[in-house]
């Protein structure tokens, strides 16, 4: 399926958010995810089913002022 991941279109054979993160090699426990403008908590990624053209944001900590 095609998704918009961090602003870029990607074709990934994933049906859940957890699968997508795994297939795209997003690692570590310091990730925050949102799908179509809604937060998806870490514990909910396994059962969060994705749909064609879902907009997925994957954020992690960085320096800030």
């Amino acid at each position, binding site marked *: 399926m095609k998704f918009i991941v961090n602003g870029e279109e990607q074709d990934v054979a994933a049906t859940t958010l957890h699968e997508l993160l795994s297939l795209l090699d997003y690692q570590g426990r310091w990730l925050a995810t949102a799908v179509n*403008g809604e937060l998806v908590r870490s514990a909910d990624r396994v059962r969060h089913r994705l749909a064609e053209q879902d907009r997925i944001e994957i954020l992690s900590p960085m320096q800030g002022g």
Partner: protein
Amino acid sequence: MLSLYGTDFASRLLLGTARYPSPAALAKAVRISRTNIVTVSLRRETAGGGSGGAFFEMIQELGVSVLPNTAGCHSVSEAVLTAKMAREVFRTDWIKLEVIGHHDTLQPDVFALVETARILSGEGFQVFPYTTDDLVVAEKLLEAGCRVLMPWCAPIGSAMGPANQHALRALRAHFPDIPLIVDAGIGRPSHAAVVMELGFDAVLLNTAVAAAADPAAMANAFALAIEAGRQAFRAGMLEPRDMAVPSTPVIGKGVFQ
């Protein structure tokens, strides 16, 4: 002690973590500043990356509290979602709320700021709003649930120092029991001392330390200035006068003519 949402802190300096020449320089500045609170942010992670995790693990080793921000957000929905994602990652209800209204001045959109603060306070966040020095906006933010106010004293990163001391004094006078933190515009330690002398509770700095030739030495200079300003405020300062007043008593002076 500085009390923020029920937690007490010894240091009155909050330090940003951006723009340091290296992670080591950041860590050294944090340690030397004696700060208890650093600001952090969230950005898009790259696939196979992990740089964000490495950064945050370094911050955790410093033993300080983190205040996540919503930097770069320009709308209510963006700021609300960013705050929720920050809570998920950083595991704190604290959020430094920034809703930017102008690209050049980075002035907050105070209307969106108040609306976002109300939403986030209702969802259990403890909001630290980056705002202007406008008294009415401050009142609205308190009505929205904020228990800390963080007015700028000049635009972010401008290093101009307190541009409108009258407005800062008015905020202090109107909200004697609300922690007031100057959040932006400080360029040098004397600026920090001035706002602390006005009775502000703390100062939040980033660029003035991070972009100094020696960030660690500047962090120490700010820590000393903030402490000096606080002690001066508590000691009670002389108000300016129009005329000279002799410091040596005149009575009893010898008469030689």
